[in-house]
C-alpha cells in the first residue's frame, strides 16, 4: 500500500474518531432530552436533529460553509481568534459530526427509553441527586446503546462525502478523506488507487458496523 493511501486511511480514521468525540456530548444530551423531557418545540428539535439524514449532504455542506466561512456568523468570530474552519481538517471533523449526529441521537435515545424510570426513582429514595442518578444509573444502563450509536456515527463519518467536499474540499494531505479520495482518484482516471481506497473503506466500515450491531443486540 502506498504512503498516500495509508495517510488517507489514517487521516479519515482519526478525523472520524474526533468527530465521534465531538458529537458525543451534544448527542447524549439531546438523546436524553428527547427521551425524558417534554418541552415546547420538542417536535422541532426532533426534526432538526434528523434533518441531515434526509437533506442532500451537499446542502448541509453548503449551510456549514455559510455558517463557518470566514464571513459567516460563527466562522467570522473564530477567524478573528485565528481559528480557521473551512478547508481545514476542522471542517472535515465538523461535517462528519453533523452528519453522524442523527444516528447517535436515535440509537442513544432508544437506550434511554429502555432504562426504566423505576431504577432512577429507587436511586432518588436512596438520597441521590439528579446528576448522580444520571451518572451512576441512567448513563451506565444506556451505555451499550450509546456505544452502538457512537459506532454508527463513526461509521457514517468514515463514509462522509457530500458535506465534506463542500466545506473542506479535497486537498491532498490536508483534507482528503477516503470517500473524497475515491472520488478524486476516479475522476482523474487513477482507477487503481481508487480501487484500493474502496477496499480499505469497506474493510473499516464493515468492522465498525459489525461491532455496532453486536453492541445493539447485547443492549
Amino acid at each position, binding site marked *: 500500500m502506498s504512503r498516500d493511501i495509508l495517510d488517507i486511511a489514517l487521516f479519515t480514521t482519526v478525523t472520524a474518531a474526533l468527530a465521534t468525540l465531538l458529537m458525543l456530548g451534544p448527542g447524549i444530551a439531546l438523546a436524553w432530552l428527547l427521551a425524558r423531557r417534554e418541552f415546547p418545540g420538542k417536535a422541532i428539535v426532533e426534526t432538526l436533529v434528523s434533518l441531515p439524514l434526509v437533506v442532500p449532504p451537499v446542502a448541509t455542506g453548503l449551510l456549514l460553509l455559510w455558517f463557518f466561512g470566514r464571513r459567516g456568523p460563527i466562522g467570522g468570530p473564530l477567524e478573528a481568534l485565528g481559528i480557521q474552519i473551512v478547508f481545514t481538517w476542522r471542517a472535515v471533523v465538523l461535517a462528519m459530526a453533523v452528519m453522524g449526529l442523527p444516528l447517535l441521537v436515535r440509537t442513544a435515545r432508544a437506550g434511554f427509553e429502555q432504562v426504566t424510570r423505576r431504577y432512577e426513582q429507587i436511586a*432518588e*429514595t436512596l*438520597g441521590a441527586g439528579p446528576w448522580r442518578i444520571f451518572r451512576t444509573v441512567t448513563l451506565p444502563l444506556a451505555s451499550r446503546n450509546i456505544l452502538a450509536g457512537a459506532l454508527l456515527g463513526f461509521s457514517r463519518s468514515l463514509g462522509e462525502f457530500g458535506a465534506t467536499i463542500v466545506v473542506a474540499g479535497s486537498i491532498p494531505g490536508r483534507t482528503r478523506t477516503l470517500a473524497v479520495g475515491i472520488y478524486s482518484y476516479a475522476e482523474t482516471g487513477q482507477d487503481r488507487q481508487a480501487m484500493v481506497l474502496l477496499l480499505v473503506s469497506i474493510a473499516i466500515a464493515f468492522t465498525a458496523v459489525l461491532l455496532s450491531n453486536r453492541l445493539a443486540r447485547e443492549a
Partner: protein
Amino acid sequence: MATFELNFALRQGAFVVRVAERADARALALFGPSGSGKTTIVEAVAGLRTPQRGTIAIDGRTLYSHEQRVNVPPRDRRVGYVPQDVLLFPHIDVRGNIVYGERPGHADFEGLVDLLDLSDLLQRKVTSLSGGERQRVALARALMSNPDVLLLDEPMAAVDLPRRRRILDALLRIRDELHVPLVYVAHSPDEVRTIADRVLVLDAGSVVARGAPIEAIG
C-alpha cells in the same frame, strides 16, 4: 415506635385512594386484595406519587402537605423503599448496591452484612442472586441510607417458602434491634400477625378495617 399520619387522597386515572389514618406502630401493615391501593400508599409515602390533597407525616415530620405547600423530594424523605420487584441496580455488584445510598457516619456496613447474612454475596453480580438473596440485599441497601422508616412492598412475594422464615427473622431484628419502624405491604394474614402491631385493611382504595392484627383480620 413511630406515629404515621396518612391523611390524603390520590387519584390515578379512574382509581382513587383515600385514607385518613393516624397510627402508632413499630410495624404498620397494609393488607388487602391486589388493586386495593397498598402500593399506591407506600409510593406516596416514598414521594414517588403526589397526592392531590392532604397530609403525610411520620413522627411529626411533614413529608407532604397540600395546605402548607410542602412536598419533600424523595431524596430528602429518609425513607428506605424496597419495591415488590426489588430493583437492585443490575450493573453494580452486591457491595456497590448496598453502599449506593450510604449516609456517612450513621449506617454500619459490617453490622448490616452480619445481620442479613450477606458476607458471601458481596462480590456477586446481582443478576446471579436468588429471590431471597435479592430481598436481603435490597433491605441492606435501603438500611444503609439510615432511613427514618422502611417501606416494604410484599417482601416475601419473590421468595420461596423455605427461605421466607429467614427474611422474616431479619425483618424482626430490623424492627426490634435497629428500631427502624416498618410499613409493610403484606401478602398473607400470617405475615401480618407475625410482624405487624397495627394493620390497615384496604379495599378498593379505602380503609375498611384497622387496629391490632388480631382485631382487624382475626
